[in-house]
């Protein structure tokens, strides 16, 4: 069970359906292994249900009971196949992509509970070097248009990340290894959900590569001129 959880405000927004797609993807991975957050999300969904009941009604077009019952007998509209094939679809929308044939292609660093990432990575996906000891994979999807960046970061043991603050939200989920910063030590499954005014300087722990999923919706702000030079490399 993870020790660091997303902010309750983030869990509420997940339940409300208002997170960006990248943030939702990250939350799905964390929720897959965090009962604590699952329970919070259920509470926020229950709040959603009750809010739904407080809504004013918008009358539906008049329909006879026979017409309604006829609808119940109609076969379900299947989503167009092409639609599903052309684009990675994660689990939240209830349409499952075929994981079985992806399973063999699973990178060894990807934990089972983060299978929602399989549409974007396989064992041949190459890491792009961005700085000494740091490489990344950018995840691309049309639905990430509301996210600034959705990427995987691989940090070599003992590497010190440049200190930075944020002008927007930054969610970090640890997939493998661990890192420490001013706010604590983050291990597999943990989420760092930092307020923008918090500056931090993560250092990867020494035993193995630290791999995390990072979703940002505004550029990172690096301190000093050297890290600023790195900014373009992060593609932000």
């Amino acid at each position, binding site marked *: 069970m993870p020790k660091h959880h997303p*902010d*309750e*405000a*983030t869990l*509420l*927004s997940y339940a*409300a*359906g*208002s*997170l*960006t*797609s990248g*943030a*939702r993807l990250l939350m799905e991975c964390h929720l897959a292994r965090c009962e604590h957050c699952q329970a919070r999300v*259920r*509470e*926020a*969904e*229950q*709040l*959603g*249900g*009750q*809010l*739904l*009941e*407080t*809504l*004013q*009604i*918008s*009358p*539906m*077009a*008049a*329909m*006879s*009971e026979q017409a*309604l*019952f006829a*609808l*119940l007998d109609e076969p*379900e509209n299947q989503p167009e196949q092409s*639609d599903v094939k052309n684009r990675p*679809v994660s689990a*939240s*929308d*209830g*349409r499952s992509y075929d994981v079985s044939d992806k399973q063999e292609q699973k990178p060894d660093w990807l934990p089972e509970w983060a299978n929602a990432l399989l549409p974007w990575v396989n064992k041949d996906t190459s890491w792009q070097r961005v700085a000494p000891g740091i490489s990344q994979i950018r995840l691309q999807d*049309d*639905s990430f248009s*509301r996210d600034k960046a959705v990427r995987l970061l691989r940090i070599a043991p003992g590497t010190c990340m440049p200190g930075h603050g944020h002008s*927007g*939200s930054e969610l970090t989920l640890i997939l493998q290894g661990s890192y420490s910063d001013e706010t604590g030590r983050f291990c597999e499954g943990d989420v760092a959900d930092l*307020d*923008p*005014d918090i500056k931090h300087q993560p250092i990867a722990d020494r035993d193995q590569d630290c791999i995390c999923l990072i979703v940002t*919706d*505004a550029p990172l702000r690096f301190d000093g001129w050297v890290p600023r030079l790195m900014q373009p490399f992060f593609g932000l």
Partner: protein
Amino acid sequence: MEKVKSVSANWNQVLTEIARHQDRQQFARLYEYFAPRVKTYLLRFTASEAQAEELAQEALLQVWRKASKYHADKAAASTWIFCIARNLFIDQQRSGKGQLEQRTDSYHEHEQLLNDRAQEVDYDHRASVRTLDQAIKELPIMQAQLVYKSYFEGKSHSEIAGDLDIPIGSVKSGLRLAFKKLRAFTGVEDV
């Protein structure tokens, strides 16, 4: 459709009947109560009333098809229906079908809606709903607005911060506080 007067309906029970016996009459009652509310919910995210109506119908048809998976001891019917409607909206947004327009009218309008609804009779059965109404009204206006924008405008923390011209940290802390207060009224323990 024939006007069904719903007196003290327990929607969890109704949905359970639908789940167990594919009870069409019960579904008609559920449809009549929830479809117009789901439509209002979806109106916030859709470009036209026709689209909201179509999606609301689709949401309720999904309720019918998936009913066998419903368990009253795990979730209230309203929670379950909310999740189906929300997933439809997410799905729609993701596929980019029918360019969704996000409305940004104010919470005040919603508050007006809440007041108007006080005359309606058919929701008296859910005392908890009225209590939630009350709890929302007792929230500081800013917190109520944050909740409204999250659930009914589908906006992320950054987007809300931009709309209201406040720091993201304030959006998060406001939502946290509101969640804490409202959670006490959702009666989670009972479900």
